[in-house]
């Protein structure tokens, strides 16, 4: 599942709306290195160089300080939490997203015996509707929103009259 250089393989790529576990330095100013763990909601992925993948994530917290509930995605229903692999009510801050390498430096599985990849759960379909609505509302109010997917390039095909394909 993980290559020798720490990259997760293509077979492990998380589908959009997967919940994965990310790790980050606790606080670089502290003398002792530690780690800060956060669930991350995957919005998409790219193959940024051949064979290397990046994922677009928004960050989750169980501490709602600085996260305005009305315009951020909240997983609080018990069934939704279990489906997502979350033990606590979790707020995903839709105003803060990052692209991260799909690499073991950034993502981990908290229980390798149970999950072979960092993907621990998924947002249900009803949650997807809410998320879509909230993103649209944020956009209407000119609040920061994660980038929309780029259209895939369609391979050009040679035309029959000799002009370059589109």
């Amino acid at each position, binding site marked *: 599942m993980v290559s020798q250089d720490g990259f997760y393989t293509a077979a492990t*790529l998380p*589908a*959009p*709306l997967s919940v994965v576990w990310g790790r*980050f*330095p606790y*606080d*670089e*100013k502290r003398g002792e290195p530690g780690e*800060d*763990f*956060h669930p991350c909601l995957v*919005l*998409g*992925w*790219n*193959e*940024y*160089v051949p064979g290397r*993948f*990046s994922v*677009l994530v928004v*960050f*989750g*917290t*169980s*501490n709602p300080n*600085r*996260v305005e509930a009305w315009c951020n995605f909240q997983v609080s229903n*018990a*069934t939704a*939490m*279990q489906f997502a*692999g*979350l*033990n*606590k009510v*979790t707020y995903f*801050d839709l105003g*803060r997203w*990052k*692209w*991260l*390498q799909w690499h073991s430096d950034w993502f981990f599985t*908290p*229980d390798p015996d*149970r999950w072979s990849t960092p993907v*621990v759960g998924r947002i249900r379909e009803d949650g*997807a509707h809410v*998320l*879509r609505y909230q*993103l*649209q509302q944020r956009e209407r109010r000119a609040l920061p929103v994660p*980038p*929309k*997917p*780029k*259209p*895939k*390039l369609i391979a050009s095909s040679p035309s029959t009259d000799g002009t370059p394909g589109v």
Partner: protein
Amino acid sequence: MNQPDRATQVVFATAGRPNVPEPFEAEYGPLRDSIFAYVDANADQEELAGGEPGQHFEW
């Protein structure tokens, strides 16, 4: 009539919380600015956002 005691017994998986295994019990705190500063310093956003698009949530 003559029905046995049918008092509902509610059994929760883990004291009322979803039955999610132990590793997820860890507290995940506020989103510190240091997290995002670290990401910006160590993950080239321009490079990672490029390349061949894969699957994306449509909204």
